[in-house]
C-alpha cells in the first residue's frame, strides 16, 4: 500500500495540468466554468487541441491514437481535465463508439472511422433508447430489413443527445424479430444523419435547453458494410459500450469545481449580518459533500487500479450511483447559495444578478438527468444487488 503518487505520476499530473490550463482556449474553459452551453465549434476546437497532442483518446489501442497509460494515469488525465474546465472529448466518440469499432469493427471501418472519430471530424450520436425501450433497452423495436446490399431501417429513437450536431448515428436495430431471446437478433448499424428518411425533432428540457432529440427513420437505406461486427450480436457490443460509459461518469473533478464555486460565492453574500460562508449549517453541508467526494475519489482510484483486462470493476456502479448524487448535491448547493437570486434565471446581461446565480436553478434542474441516463441509479442498484451481493 502506498499513499502518494510516484514521482513519474506526479510529473504526469503536472504535465496534464499545465497542458489543460494553458493550451485549451480560455474562452472555452470560461464557458464551461460558467455552466454555459457550448457551441458545436467550441466542442470541436477543444477536442482537436487535445487530439493534436495525443490527449483525446488515450484509452484506445495505441495504433489508433491510444497512449498505453496505466489506469491511474487515465484517472489523473480525466480529473485534471475536469478541474481545468476543459470540455471532455465527446463521450459518444471517445468512450462509446470508438472503442467498439476498435474492438469489433472491420479493418475498413477502423481506417474509415477511427481517425475522424478521435478528431471529432465525425460527430456521433447514440441511437439506443426508444419511447418504449428505456431501462429495458432489449425491448427496442426499430427494425432493419435486408434488401440487396442495404439494410432498410424503420422506427424511432429518442433522447438522442446533441443529435442536432451529429454527422453519424450508431444505432441499435432489430434484425431478427423471431430470435428466441429479446437480446438476440439485435444489430449495431452506423449511418449518416443526413441519410434520406432521417428526421430529427428537438425536445425541450426543463431548463429551456435543447440537448436531446427524437429521431425518426423512414425507409432509411444503410449499406451492408456499415454493420458493426456480426449480425444479431449488437447486444454484446452495446453492453461493452455501456460498461465503458460508466467509468468516468462520476465526474469528480467537475463536482469539485462546483464546490469551489459555491464557497467563493458564499463569501460574497451577506446572511444574518455575516458572510454566508460563515454559516455553520452551510459549512457543514459543504464539508459533508467534500468528504463524500473524497470517499468517491478514493474509491475511483481503487476501482481503476483493479480493473483487470480493461473490464470495468463491478464496484464501478458505486461510481455512477454516488457520482451522480454528488453532482446533483453540488448543483443544489449552488442554487441554495444563490438563494433569492436564483429565481431570476433569465434576467440576462442587463441585470445585476450575476451570471452564476442566473444559471444555478436551470443547472440544478438539468442535472436531474444524471441519475437517469447512463443506466439509471435504480439500474445500478440492480447491478450491485445482483452481480455483487448475489441477490
Amino acid at each position, binding site marked *: 500500500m502506498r499513499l*502518494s503518487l510516484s514521482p513519474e505520476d506526479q510529473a504526469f499530473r503536472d504535465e496534464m495540468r499545465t497542458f489543460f490550463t494553458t493550451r485549451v482556449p480560455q474562452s472555452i474553459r470560461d464557458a464551461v466554468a460558467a455552466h454555459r452551453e457550448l457551441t458545436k465549434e467550441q466542442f470541436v476546437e477543444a477536442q482537436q487541441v487535445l487530439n493534436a497532442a495525443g490527449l483525446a483518446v488515450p484509452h484506445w489501442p495505441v495504433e489508433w491514437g491510444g497512449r498505453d497509460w496505466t489506469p491511474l494515469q487515465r484517472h489523473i488525465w480525466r480529473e485534471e481535465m475536469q478541474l481545468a474546465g476543459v470540455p471532455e472529448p465527446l463521450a459518444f466518440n471517445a468512450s462509446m463508439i470508438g472503442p467498439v469499432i476498435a474492438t469489433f469493427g472491420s479493418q475498413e471501418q477502423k481506417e474509415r472511422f477511427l481517425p475522424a472519430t478521435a478528431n471529432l471530424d465525425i460527430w456521433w450520436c447514440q441511437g439506443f433508447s426508444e419511447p418504449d425501450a428505456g431501462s429495458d433497452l432489449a425491448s427496442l423495436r426499430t427494425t432493419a430489413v435486408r434488401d440487396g446490399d442495404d439494410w432498410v431501417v424503420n422506427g424511432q429513437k429518442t433522447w438522442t443527445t446533441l443529435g442536432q450536431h451529429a454527422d453519424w448515428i450508431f444505432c441499435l436495430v432489430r434484425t431478427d424479430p423471431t430470435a428466441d431471446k429479446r437480446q438476440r437478433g439485435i444489430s449495431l448499424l452506423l449511418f449518416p444523419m443526413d441519410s434520406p428518411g432521417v428526421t430529427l425533432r428537438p425536445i425541450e428540457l426543463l431548463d429551456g435547453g435543447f440537448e436531446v432529440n427524437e429521431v425518426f427513420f423512414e425507409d432509411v437505406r444503410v449499406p451492408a458494410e456499415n454493420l458493426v461486427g456480426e449480425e444479431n450480436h449488437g447486444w454484446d457490443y452495446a453492453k461493452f459500450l455501456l460498461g465503458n460509459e460508466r467509468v468516468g461518469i462520476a465526474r469528480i473533478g467537475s463536482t469539485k469545481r462546483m464546490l*469551489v464555486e459555491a464557497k467563493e460565492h458564499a463569501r460574497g453574500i451577506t446572511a444574518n449580518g455575516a458572510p454566508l460562508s460563515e454559516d455553520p449549517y452551510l*459549512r457543514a453541508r459543504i464539508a459533508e459533500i467534500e468528504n463524500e467526494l473524497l470517499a468517491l475519489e478514493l474509491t475511483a482510484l481503487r476501482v481503476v487500479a483493479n480493473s483487470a483486462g480493461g473490464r470495468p470493476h463491478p464496484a464501478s456502479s458505486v461510481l455512477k450511483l454516488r457520482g451522480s448524487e454528488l453532482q446533483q448535491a453540488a448543483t443544489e448547493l449552488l442554487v441554495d447559495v444563490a438563494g433569492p437570486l436564483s429565481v431570476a434565471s433569465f434576467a440576462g446581461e442587463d441585470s445585476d444578478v450575476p451570471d452564476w446565480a442566473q444559471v444555478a436553478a436551470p443547472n440544478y434542474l438539468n442535472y436531474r438527468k444524471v441519475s437517469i441516463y447512463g443506466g439509471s441509479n435504480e439500474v445500478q442498484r440492480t447491478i450491485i*444487488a445482483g452481480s455483487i451481493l448475489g441477490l
Partner: protein
Amino acid sequence: MDFSYDDEQNGLREAVSALLGRAYADSEQRRRVVAGDPGFDEKTWSRLAEMGVLGLPFAESDGGMGAGPVEVSIVAEEIGRVLAPEPFVEAVVLAGGLVADLGTDAQRAEVLGALAEGSLVPAFAHAETGTRWEPTAAAVTATEDGGSWRLTGVKEPVPNGARADVLVVSAVAGGVTRLFLVQGDAEGLTRTGHRNHDGTRSAKVEFAGTPAQPLGEGTGDRSGAVEKALARARVAYGHEALGAMETALTTTAEYLKARKQFGVPLSKFQALTFRAADMYVSLELARSTVMWATLVVDADGDVVAAADRARLQTSRASRHIGKEAIQLHGGIGVTAEYKVGHYTSRLTAIDHLLGDGDWALARLAGSVDAHETVDPLA
C-alpha cells in the same frame, strides 16, 4: 497510490482470521465469552500475543514487531469481522501507542514488552462525564509532593478499566494536560466495572491521592500527543468497523436469499435488494476513506484531519448499515440469540467511543474555507 496488500500482509490477515475464526466460530461463543469478566477471552489474548499481534506497532527494541499502521489495520478489521471482544485497539493502539510515543526507555520496555507478550493489559483512562471527546483532562488533578505524584478525581467510562493491569491516565497539572502511569494495585485506586451494551467492559475509576508516575520526561502539555493518539485509534476503529459492517452486510444478503415470505425468498423483493445495494455503497465508500487514512498515518501526514474524515464516513456508514441490517432481518434481528444485532451494537459503541460523525463534521466544517478542494493525492 496503491491500495493492495503485499504477501506478508495477506499472510498476517489469514493467520489472524484463522485464529479468531476458531475462537468465535459462532455468535454463541462470543456470547459466552462476554457473559463473564473480563469480557474477553484471556486464552485468545495469549494466542494473539504468541502470534506477535499485540506487539505489531512497537519497535523491536521495545519488544515489538516493528510493523506499521497497515498491519494494525488488518488485525483490527479481522477483530471487527467476528466481533472479537479482545481489546486490541484499546490496549495496543491507544494505551500502548501513548506509551510508545511518550514513554521513557524504561517505561516502554516495561509496558510494551509485557503487552506484546500478553502478560499485561493497559487501558487509557481519559473520558470524563460532562465532556465529549476532548484531548484535554479536567476531572482528575495531579499534584507533586517531593518528587512523587498523586492523582485525585474520577475517570468514567474507562474501557477495560477494571481489568487493566496498568492505566495511562490523563490529568491536569499546572494548568495543562499531562499523562501518568498508574499500577492496577496502587493504593487509593477504586475501580467499579460494568458491562457495556456491546458486551465489552467499562469502569468508573476513582483516584484518591493515588500514586502515579509521569509518562515520559518533561512537564509540558500532552494534549497534542493525546489528540494524535486518539486520531490513530479512530482510524484503527474505522477498520474494526469495516470488518463489522462487512459481516453485517453479507449476513443480511445471505438472509435475504434464505428467508421465505409470501412463497418466495425475500431477495425477490426489489425494495429490499435496493436497500442492500445502498449498504454496499456505504461500505465501499467508507472502506476507501479509512484505507486512505491509514496510509496518511503510515506517512505521518495530517493524521488528525484524515482521522476526522475517516470518522465522518465510517460513522455515517455504520449507522446506515447497522440499522438496515436489523430492519431487513425483521424480528430475528433484534434478538440476542441472533448475531446481526450485536454487530449494530458494537458499531454504535465504536461510533461513540472516540467521536461520532456529527462531531467530526463540525470540526471539518470549521476548515472548509482553508482549502480550495480536498485532494487525496496532494
